[in-house]
């Protein structure tokens, strides 16, 4: 077994953050400091200054700042954060903030790094968000497998209470906020915001019907602001450095810094904090050290396993919401999975579809049965038992499921298979005709 972290592209301190010199890291600026997760370290480097500043402003000022920053949700959907804050009704007696640390999307490993190494940054974001929308209670939902993350969350919250950043009458302003941690039980679908709320309420993690959106009827029937933790981590910086600074980074519709989780066949996999709008080529070849073993690039999944893959000739696309959409994919969580020429696309599609078929909640027919049939079709082709019809069957299934499911999961789960077939159809045909893979030797 190879135990040398360097050879996996990890830094000596075990962190997966590998920032380039050229861009000043903001979200990950503390991560390589010793004891970066401790409140003392955080305070020693300007921590909680944003809360102090924010609590001197009005809620409307804060919402306006977040709107002007152009920050969009980093959990996958990319919804404008400030707009979401504005949707929370002013007059409700009680409101909640729900903090999404479920991070289930294959290829994504940024939230884990944030909570394990700089949880106070997120707490600061939560306090500011709660103050701005008038929430008095924040619930953290964390993926059950993140054992260290759970410990770090609990410790950080306890320390924040001790320092008067949480609890009653925060910093003497009269603002109260309680915060607690809840562990998930290992279901991908519980990262979907309404399934997460169900799970937080102690119920089966099924997505809810939308509308009403959580901003109107959320946790326990009350207005709830749901955010991914990377989104929340941006908030203190927007407050301290100003929305114009944040909006100055990135492209027209994609502002600010973003943590890209790069995995797969690159020399230096890891998390890279870079400006939105950077091209995929730069991330792969400059920051991640290019393809391992000098091999050819074959395909890239740009935003987590549920986003359509791109081919090697598409990597000049800027990593931004609008440009990736135009290229036929999505920014998603910004998790980049790099696949080199040794990758079998049939196997890739099969494996990812198996994951999603395992993870659908099973509420609606097309996603429940369709995902299983899609997986079975790909599995047949992979095992050399497919027929030419199976390729069209798979595409029919993908198109059939897309757009008719209860929640976005259905539309997401068809992406690996559909994009693999559309880009690499010849490989599927080869599998069927020759009963073996054209890639593996």
């Amino acid at each position, binding site marked *: 077994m190879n135990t040398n972290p360097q050879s996996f592209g990890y830094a000596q301190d075990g962190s997966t953050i590998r920032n380039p010199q050229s861009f000043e890291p903001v979200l990950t600026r503390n991560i390589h400091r010793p004891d970066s997760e401790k409140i003392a370290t955080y305070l020693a480097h300007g921590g909680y200054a944003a809360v102090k500043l924010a609590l001197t402003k009005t809620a409307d000022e804060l919402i306006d700042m977040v709107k002007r920053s152009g920050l969009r949700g980093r959990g996958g959907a990319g919804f404008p954060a400030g707009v979401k804050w504005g949707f929370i009704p002013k007059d409700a007696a009680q409101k909640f903030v729900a903090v999404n640390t479920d991070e289930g999307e294959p290829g994504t490993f940024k939230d884990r790094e944030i909570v394990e190494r700089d949880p106070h940054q997120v707490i600061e974001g939560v306090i500011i968000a709660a103050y701005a929308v008038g929430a008095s209670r924040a619930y953290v939902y964390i993926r059950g497998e993140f054992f260290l993350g759970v410990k770090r969350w609990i410790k950080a919250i306890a320390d924040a209470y001790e320092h008067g950043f949480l609890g009653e009458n925060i910093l003497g302003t009269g603002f109260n906020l309680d915060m607690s941690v809840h562990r998930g039980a290992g279901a991908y679908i519980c990262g979907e915001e309404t399934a997460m709320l169900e799970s937080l309420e102690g119920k089966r993690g099924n997505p809810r019907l939308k509308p009403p959106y959580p901003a109107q009827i959320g946790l326990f029937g009350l207005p709830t602001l749901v955010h991914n933790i990377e989104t929340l981590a941006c908030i203190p910086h927007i407050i301290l450095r100003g929305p114009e600074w944040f909006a100055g980074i990135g492209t027209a519709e994609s502002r600010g810094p973003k943590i890209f989780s790069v995995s797969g066949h690159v020399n230096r996999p890891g998390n890279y904090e870079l400006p939105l709008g950077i091209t995929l080529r730069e991330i792969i070849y400059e920051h991640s050290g290019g393809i391992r073993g000098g091999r050819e690039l074959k395909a890239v999944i740009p935003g987590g396993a549920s986003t359509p893959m791109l081919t090697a000739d598409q990597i000049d696309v800027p990593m931004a919401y609008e440009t990736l959409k135009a290229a036929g994919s999505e920014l998603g969580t910004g998790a980049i999975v790099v696949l080199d020429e040794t990758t079998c696309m049939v196997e890739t599609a099969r494996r990812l579809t198996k994951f999603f078929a395992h*993870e659908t909640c099973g*509420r609606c027919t097309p996603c429940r049965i369709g995902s299983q049939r899609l997986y079975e079709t790909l599995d047949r082709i992979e095992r050399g038992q497919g027929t030419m019809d199976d390729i069209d069957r798979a595409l029919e299934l993908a198109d059939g499921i897309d757009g008719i499911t209860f929640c976005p999961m259905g539309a997401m789960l068809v992406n690996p298979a559909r994009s693999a077939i559309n880009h690499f159809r010849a490989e599927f045909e080869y599998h069927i005709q020759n009963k073996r893979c054209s890639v593996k030797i």
Partner: protein
Amino acid sequence: MTVNLTINGQKIQAETGQTVLQAARAVGIHIPVLCEHPALPPDGACRICLVEIEKQRGLQPACTFPATEGLVISTHSPRVMDSRKFTLELLISDHPLDCMTCEATGDCTLQDLAYEYGVKDSRYQGKQHNYPLDASNPFIQVERNKCILCRRCVRACSHINGVEAISVFYRGFNAYIGFGADGRMQDSSCEFCGSCVAVCPTGALWPKMSIGKGRPWQVEKVDTICSYCGVGCKLSLHIRDNQIIRVEGANGPANHGWTCVKGRFGYDYVHHPDRVLTPRVRRYLLEGVKKPENRESRIENSKGGTNLDSLVSNFWDWVETDWDTALNIVAEKLRTKRDTHGPDSIGVLTSAKCTNEENYLMNKFARQVIGTNNIDHCARL
């Protein structure tokens, strides 16, 4: 407030708060459903009711989509038809398709839809479930292989009966309907009301006593009022060859189609050989003799003759008689009691099994015929 919509080119009005499905139904436009049930909160699970709505990206479920001003809806466009066929093909790809012997044939929404959409088999073959039959419950048989996970039963159990004995276990393709803490139905908190059976669109949940007793088109349906209690649920008796083979709740003002375990499953007494059909009185009353102390005492042959019956019989035996004889004895006894001990020596206790009208008459009887205020009702005990 009303809103204006256009469905299939027809301009209609709907109430705000209605769904597209409700609005369409109100004017007689048919949109197929599987998981929707008018008495249950909408779930949006089956995706059969999808319709095309202008300016909406994907197809939208009519059962949950709110009817709002200006919607232009198409309920049977080619895109909609394709999507319904697709969903049906997926459903039957994991379905036994043993319609020939299935109890639900003729009473199955999945079968009706397959017929309506010409879905004979599925292009998407693969793994099929093979769950064991759960026949533990005395009244309800659970055949999970026929379940389409519409979750109507889950909602009926929690929203109609308030029991929550049924829920969904596991995820995705392996999700199934389960009971209690995922055990047998019999071991759950099930109260046997059968609301789940009533709403199940397929043969997955079936009344055990009706198995093999007849097809829906072989029965004559007779509406009646349940004889068990004063709520007065309206029932529909399914009768074949002069035998009740199934009972369903019918839409009456007291029960809106629902009923409890007694009304739905407690009908075997009707044809039971032990059932008492004629009035009976104790022999000593019929003979007009004094109530004997000793229950073993034989009838004395008072008239000097030989009465074989009397010799072998007991004074305490029940003897079948006619209504007039029986009621005359009761009336005579009551009258004697009232006249010798006064009206307040008599008390009347009525029953929750009586109708309101019957209870009203008992009240009149106590106060005006007997002349006492000693009247009460078992529901107060």
